[in-house]
């Protein structure tokens, strides 16, 4: 049987199945005029991005844009790859240019929201997700059925501690109960509101759905450790304080010290030691979060 598919077809096939390694191997076999096509560069940029090589993805996308400066897929992947490689300003400029060309694209608008949310996270400053939220809402308005738009809206809501996060996450889960991302966002939304126990169940479910993702596996492992008996008092206090156990602890220490309540003060300090011991133990047993 002769080979029916060219390497570009094979690469597209593998990319759709979450195998960027195979897609890159297929793209290595591309020769001749296909090397100059924007499809080749779009596939290469996407494969490199999925494989975690954001810098190389930026280069590939830029080379592709030389052939077609208005290519939707290339502009989108360039912006995301720039964001992943820490070039937030460039990412924002790219996505804004792309939106000038495709103003009605919910996907681009959702990715703009994601970029704005990441741009909002700056050290030593109060983080405001106002612009990111507005962009996410706009993405959903453009296409209420866009999975990307709905996911980004829920993610930003969870990141910013928005009370609507749980509603958005529930909506995602309802659409696709087997989506690991929906479970992660739901877990984050619930944990942020103090319901850590329920959040951990969702993280574990996400790990069960896709253990091949090292971050999800780590999250699952950490969730299991937090479900052990020694972490139960911590989970209980998170529930009572609606996820503000550390703030609560600081208040108690200050109050007991100023009121000269030595016993309570000692109990608060003992709890502080307990929190650290649990934290160190879990860190040692589950390792660092994979990058």
């Amino acid at each position: 049987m002769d080979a029916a598919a060219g390497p570009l077809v094979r690469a597209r096939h593998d990319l759709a199945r979450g195998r960027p390694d195979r897609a890159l191997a297929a793209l290595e076999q591309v020769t001749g005029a296909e090397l100059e096509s924007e499809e080749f560069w779009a596939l290469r940029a996407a494969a490199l991005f999925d494989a975690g090589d954001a810098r190389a993805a930026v280069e590939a996308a830029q080379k592709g844009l030389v052939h077609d400066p208005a290519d939707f897929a290339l502009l989108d992947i360039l912006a995301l790859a720039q964001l992943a490689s820490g070039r937030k300003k460039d990412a924002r400029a790219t996505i804004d240019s792309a939106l000038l060309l495709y103003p009605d694209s919910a996907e681009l608008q959702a990715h703009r929201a994601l970029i704005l949310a990441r741009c909002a996270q700056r050290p030593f400053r109060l983080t405001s997700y106002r612009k990111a939220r507005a962009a996410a809402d706009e993405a959903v308005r453009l296409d209420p059925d866009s999975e990307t738009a709905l996911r980004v809206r829920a993610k930003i809501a969870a990141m910013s501690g928005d009370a609507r996060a749980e509603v958005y996450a529930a909506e995602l889960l309802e659409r696709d109960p087997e989506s690991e991302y929906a479970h992660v966002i739901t877990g984050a939304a619930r944990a942020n509101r103090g319901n850590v126990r329920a959040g951990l169940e969702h993280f574990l479910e996400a790990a069960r759905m896709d253990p091949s993702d090292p971050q999800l596996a780590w999250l699952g492992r950490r969730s299991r450790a937090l479900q052990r008996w020694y972490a139960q008092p911590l989970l209980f206090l998170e529930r009572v304080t609606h996820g503000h156990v550390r703030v609560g602890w600081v208040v108690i220490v200050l109050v007991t010290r100023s009121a000269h309540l030595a016993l309570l003060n000692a109990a608060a300090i003992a709890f502080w030691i307990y929190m650290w011991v649990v934290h160190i133990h879990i860190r040692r047993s589950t390792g660092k979060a994979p990058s």
Partner: protein
Amino acid sequence: MGRSHPHPAEHREGAELNVDRIAGLRAALTAAPDNHALRLMLAEELLNDGQAGEALTEYDLLLAAGQLDEHGLVAGGRAALAAGRHDRAQAFVEAAGATGAVNGISELKREINDALGLQHLVQVVKQGIGEDGAPLQPELELDSKPAVTFADVGGLVDVKKAINRTIILPFQRTDLYEKYKRGAGGGVLLFGPPGCGKTLLARATAGECGLPFSNVRIEEILDPYFGVSESNLHDAFVQARRFAPCVLFVDELDAIAFARRKFTGNVGRPLVDQLLQELDAIGADNENVLVLAATNAPWDVDEAMKRPGRFDRIVFVPPPDPPARERILTLHLAGRPSEDVDVTKIARRTPLFSGADLRALVERAVDLVIDDALERGEERPLATRDLEQALDSMRPSTLEWIATARNYVEFANQGGRYDEVAAFLVSREARAWKD
């Protein structure tokens, strides 16, 4: 009418003469070990004397030195065949191909095929050709490589036992299986890290069953036009059924039968549906088609594929064990100038190394020797220390797979589907790189 056989006395005299010549040539070679013409004469004499193994050793040395012409390559191949070393015979054929030699090569290839029983399989396939030479039906594409058997696969004893029990016996003891109304054929899925011999095992399974082997690759199935990929897949199965009993091998099963739940749209689903239909047809009206598949991502294979009647027999192929690594290293070292390489020691120090990793290890060690030769101006053979030095900068490529498999065992081992992997992960071999 002339005498067809020499008189016994003449035969004895001839044999004695040959022994003398061999002894003389050996003595001359001791004095001049680099005389390739003498070595070639010795090899020919040894072959004529029926000492095929010894002749092969001499031909191997000449091959490594690049001192064999067309005639010598064919003679070397015949010596290998006579010594029962099909792999070496194939090496001579390949060397002949690389030098552009043609005379006698096709005959040698035929002899290799005959020796392996492949010629019979080619005849089976040719039954589908009409009197005018035009194919009556599409031909089953046989793999052009000679058949291999379990003897050609080093180590992996447990895996071979499992395959023998579940796959080969039903074909070899058809009487027994027919008596109990248990049909041969069906689907078997081999999974494990990449580069660890899944394809070789599938080929060897076909060789053990004495069946034709057809390899279906994703590149041959995929087509950019709507519906053509499904049609290509269907054709592959139609051909296999026509030539049953046979082995149809689907490489990278996850690329064809990717889990449908992971697709957001309908993309790729028709191909999975088509494969399901083909597999279901096997049980209904296509006995004796053994469908073997391999994947290094069993978790990405659609769940429906693993149900009874489809790929219901799943075999884990771990990275090569120490005996297998020894054999692989020996194969890669053959034909290279080397000196008392302690293959056992290197095999012990390379847990989780795949076949491809071991080849890379030998090549790195060879690079070190070449660098050394260029620096010092004198050539020396490859030694154990070169391999050890190369090993210091290498890690097995299977580690990523092992890490992913560990996650699946931890989070998604419902129904014990990865119990074999779990057992492997607690073995000393698997833990060697974790600690």
